[in-house]
């Protein structure tokens, strides 16, 4: 049994658990063994607490024996990006600044997982404070793409995507501010979603850019993403932007099979800069949908060209404000030598932050500074309105949009680190969803000749998660891309 465990989806494991054919302790042990075997090479985890994970598994098995299993996730491991608070566990955001910090409370999503019996485990690597697109900005370690260890896993949730792709965990949570779940999912050949802004509470998610941040699930099948989304979504009074709206059963709530779907292909997402193999794979996926009865038409999102600039003003402005809390006083890194209280801030922040975080704080401070606010920040917020309108206009004509997730497949380590702007431009297809607040799903839609995964993005209406999951499932059933495994 234990050989086959790590290759199973969460839903398959749930069935085996319910039938008494495997225990949660066996499942947890199999994933810990796998992680021990492959993670020196993959580097998805910063750390994990083996005893704590096994204790949770034992408790789950006891519940089940006494007839009190808590639902489909009871006994299933969910690994956690190092940006979410898990009581009693380290919370570092892969930074030097928060090295040694221990969470005094659980994030809302972690509370939800615990209520449903899931095993909350591990600290997954990421770009420092979620700022980056390759996980190369981690202050802790390098993470490799399981499909090619010389390449990056994407970012910032690189550990989340790599751990799921490498069969170290069936499920993981990440966070997505500009594509940080979807882009690594596409690079690592797994399924990842950024839900509608407000669908999931941000309580206990370390803030990067508060009007854009959203927690997102990562898994090896669309149904597993649906399961994890349903488990963590819902209203929470501790996040004033969390929306009070019923959480449907995303796994079983598909629209009627005879629904006539209308899909849009935004022409601006297939222009200069797209890798020909990526374009060809997404084109084939689009053909699949029209062949299977969907009405596919070209649409326009005319303000797409401004999305990257708009994003890097708004995200850095919010980051400069959010990261002001790291001052070396109440928690986080404190410089050993400081002349006075103010110098303590300067030195602690100089020592505790990495280059990309400093760069973004400085840019964000600049665009908010006196004399520049109107020209940069306020203007970006207005362009954000136009970008959002583009999407909402498109959704009057179509149910969902089909795009590539990233213009390129996984690139080599070090290939883009010297030019921040070039790295930012990688996010061009994903940041629109964050600016507009709409949900986006990335699913594998092919491989390059060199064997690297290619991801397709399905964007939906606000709170249209069910629709895009259903479309993802239709594609997944017709293909075997989520069945392939990297050679590790």
């Amino acid at each position, binding site marked *: 049994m234990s050989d086959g465990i790590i290759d199973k989806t969460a839903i398959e494991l749930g069935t085996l658990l319910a039938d008494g054919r495997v225990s949660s302790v066996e499942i947890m042990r199999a994933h810990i063994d796998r992680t021990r075997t492959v993670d020196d090479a993959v580097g998805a985890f910063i750390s994990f607490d083996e005893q704590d994970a096994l204790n949770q598994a034992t408790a789950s098995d006891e519940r089940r024996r006494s007839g009190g299993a808590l639902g489909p996730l009871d006994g299933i491991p969910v690994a956690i990006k190092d940006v979410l608070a898990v009581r009693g566990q380290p919370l570092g955001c892969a930074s030097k600044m928060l090295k040694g910090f221990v969470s005094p409370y659980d994030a809302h999503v972690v509370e939800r997982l615990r209520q449903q019996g899931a095993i909350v485990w591990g600290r997954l690597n990421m770009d420092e404070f979620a700022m980056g697109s390759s996980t190369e900005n981690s202050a802790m370690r390098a993470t490799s793409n399981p499909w090619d260890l010389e390449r990056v896993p994407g970012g910032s949730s690189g550990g989340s995507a790599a751990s799921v792709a490498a069969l170290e965990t069936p499920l993981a949570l990440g966070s997505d501010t500009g594509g940080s779940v979807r882009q690594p999912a596409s690079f690592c050949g797994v399924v990842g979603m950024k839900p509608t802004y407000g669908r999931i509470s941000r309580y206990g998610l370390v803030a990067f850019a508060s009007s854009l941040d959203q927690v997102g699930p990562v898994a090896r099948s669309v149904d597993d993403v649906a399961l994890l989304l349903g488990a963590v979504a819902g209203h929470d009074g501790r996040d004033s932007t969390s929306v009070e709206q019923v959480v449907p059963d995303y796994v079983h709530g598909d629209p009627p099979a005879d629904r006539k779907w209308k899909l849009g292909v935004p022409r601006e997402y297939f222009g200069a800069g797209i890798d020909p193999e990526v374009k060809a794979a997404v084109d084939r996926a689009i053909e699949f949908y029209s062949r299977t009865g969907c009405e596919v038409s070209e649409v326009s999102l005319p303000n797409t060209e401004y999305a990257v600039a708009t994003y890097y003003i708004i995200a850095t402005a919010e980051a400069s404000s959010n990261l002001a809390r790291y001052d070396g006083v109440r928690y986080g890194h*404190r410089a050993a030598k400081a002349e006075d209280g103010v110098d303590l801030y300067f030195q602690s*922040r100089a020592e505790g932050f990495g280059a990309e975080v400093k760069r973004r704080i400085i840019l964000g401070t600049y665009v908010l500074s006196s004399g520049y606010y109107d020209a940069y920040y306020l203007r970006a917020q207005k362009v954000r309105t136009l970008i959002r309108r583009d999407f909402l206009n498109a959704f009057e004509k179509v149910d969902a949009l089909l795009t590539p997730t990233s213009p390129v497949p996984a690139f080599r380590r070090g290939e883009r680190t010297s030019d921040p702007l070039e790295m930012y431009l990688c996010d061009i297809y994903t940041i629109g969803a964050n600016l507009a*607040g709409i949900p986006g799903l990335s699913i594998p839609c092919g491989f390059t000749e060199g064997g690297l995964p290619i991801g397709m993005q399905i964007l939906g209406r606000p709170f249209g998660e069910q629709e895009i999951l259903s479309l993802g499932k239709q594609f997944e059933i017709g293909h075997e891309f989520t069945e392939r495994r990297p050679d590790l």
Partner: protein
Amino acid sequence: MSTHAHIDIDYVANLARIALSDQERSLFSEQLEEILEYIEQLKSVDVDGVEPTAHTFPVTNVWREDVVRPGLTQEEAIGNAPEARDGMFVVPKVVE
């Protein structure tokens, strides 16, 4: 580089309370000016009469009952402090 995208790195780093090394100062200046140059394209967008978006789904003010609820204990609250004494955060002397 460009005349219109200039960033006074010392002024901004001071506002951000980050001490920069000489090397960081020159590297960041160059990189940030390149990024600002890119961002300048927003100036060509016609935003007359467009309302700014701060949050995508505007929610009205959220209220809760003002009642005592459990929170962190003092011990938990200072548990991650770089330096603490007698239930307080210790900082360098701020008043002579």
